[in-house]
């Protein structure tokens, strides 16, 4: 094998790489905007789903959430006046980080929560995405963000067999509200 072969082999590989690069960059240029747009749409839909009466919900601040991940605070505005906030935050669950949206009114009363992603045990932990569980948070203040095993009307009832996940979400909500409080204390304009 001579030097010519080396060049040939190299060119061979370079050609394939280049071809792949071109194809992929073209595909990406086409698909990525679509993907981002859809993501944005989904986010807006999720945010709007929590505070439907808002005119606009926009990003207002970021903070460090569980596991060093970035949390975001969105401000919901109606008629130019803030009517509430949506906090996107992480919480450490049973077997994964649970990512969720927590909607709060200006008095820090929970409006609702949304689970964005989790990888808890199917059939157990993933029941945190069940409507009855999430609905419990509506109208709660921080004092009542306590997990109870068994029936409760005032606090948060644990999903049976998944107390850890239940507690994780509840604590996550609490942490989100606290983070919002802290950010608002820092940034009066918020």
């Amino acid at each position, binding site marked *: 094998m001579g030097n010519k072969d080396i060049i040939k082999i190299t060119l061979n590989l370079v050609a394939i790489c280049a071809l792949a690069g071109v194809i992929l960059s073209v595909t990406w240029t086409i698909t990525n905007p679509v993907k981002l747009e859809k993501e944005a749409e989904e986010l807006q839909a999720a945010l709007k789903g929590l505070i439907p009466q808002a005119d606009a919900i926009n990003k207002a601040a970021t903070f460090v959430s569980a596991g060093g991940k970035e949390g975001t605070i969105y401000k919901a505005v109606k008629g130019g006046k803030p009517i509430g906030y949506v906090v996107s935050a992480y919480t450490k669950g*049973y077997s994964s980080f649970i990512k969720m949206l927590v909607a709060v009114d200006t008095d820090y009363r929970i409006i609702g929560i949304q689970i964005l992603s989790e990888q808890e045990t199917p059939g*157990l932990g993933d029941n945190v995405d069940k409507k009855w569980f999430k609905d419990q948070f509506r109208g709660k203040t921080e004092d009542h963000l306590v997990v109870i095993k068994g029936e409760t009307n005032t606090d948060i009832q644990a999903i*049976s*067999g998944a*107390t*850890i996940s239940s507690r994780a979400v509840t604590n996550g909500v609490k942490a989100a509200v606290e983070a919002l409080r802290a950010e608002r204390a820092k940034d009066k304009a918020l």
Partner: protein
Amino acid sequence: MDTEKNPQEAGLFRASVGPHISSGESVPHIMWTVSAALMPAAGLSVYYFGLRALLILVVSMVSSVAFEALTQKLTGAKITAGDGSALLTGLLLGMNLPASVPFYLPIIGSAVAIIITKQLFGGLGYNIFNPALIGRAFLMASFPRFMTTWLVPHGSLSLARPDAVTGATPLGILKEEGYDKLLSHFAGRHDMYVQLLLGHRGGAMGETGVIALLFGAAYLLYKGYITWHIPVTFIATVAVLTAVFGGDPWLAILSGGLVLGAFFMATDYVTVPQLKKAQVAFGLGCGIITVLIRLEGGYPEGVCYAILLMNCFTPLLDRAFKAKKFGEAPVK
């Protein structure tokens, strides 16, 4: 050649390679003895948890033996379901369940224990994992709700599923609510130890009567059917580590399934290392994992998983430790 010289007119001699006599020990004898040694504890759990407990145990044992016979028939193997090993597996599985579970749980558990864990590997002697514990872990993963609903000792004769009266296990309370709460639950430290020893507390059927378990274990030790190596290292490791991490070592020993696990399940010949040195390592590993799970894990109790995890290492331990051959320089 001359073959007509047969002096024994009645028939043919028997012949085999030696030895021609034996100690008379047999597998069924061992298995039935171990089952018998569990009877005091089983009796105690029936006393505490009522007739229902008895029925769960019976269902578990009968279904284990039935599954054993069934699979052996299907695979065309010799049917040895009466040798007591399946019965023992069923008994231990039953003792690992709360008395409140529905009756189909022990049946599913036995199916997993006997068919998947034992017979698919070739039956007695070949399984890698402790069948009863796999049965329990399987049920735990499948029906966590049933498996963590504990009965308060009540001695009822009713067979209905008493779903209202549930009580937490000591370790559950410890994990969820802390040591002080546990003490108040038992009205004092001394009372707690006594209650735990007598088994008057929530838990799986076989876990509760520590004193009865120790009684049976002592008998097995005396008969030489089990040796001290695994149980003692296992329990000592748990006690010491618990103390090191600031826990109550006596509570650690008396609560959970430690005594049952250490004396009756971590000693199952088939699934633990053969050599005494390796057995000590096995017990040590069991102890460390148990404490890790109890202190840090998602479960309040770790004995079952600790034994199963160490079962994974049994073939490796068997390889790692070799007996000293006669005449060989001692191995370090």
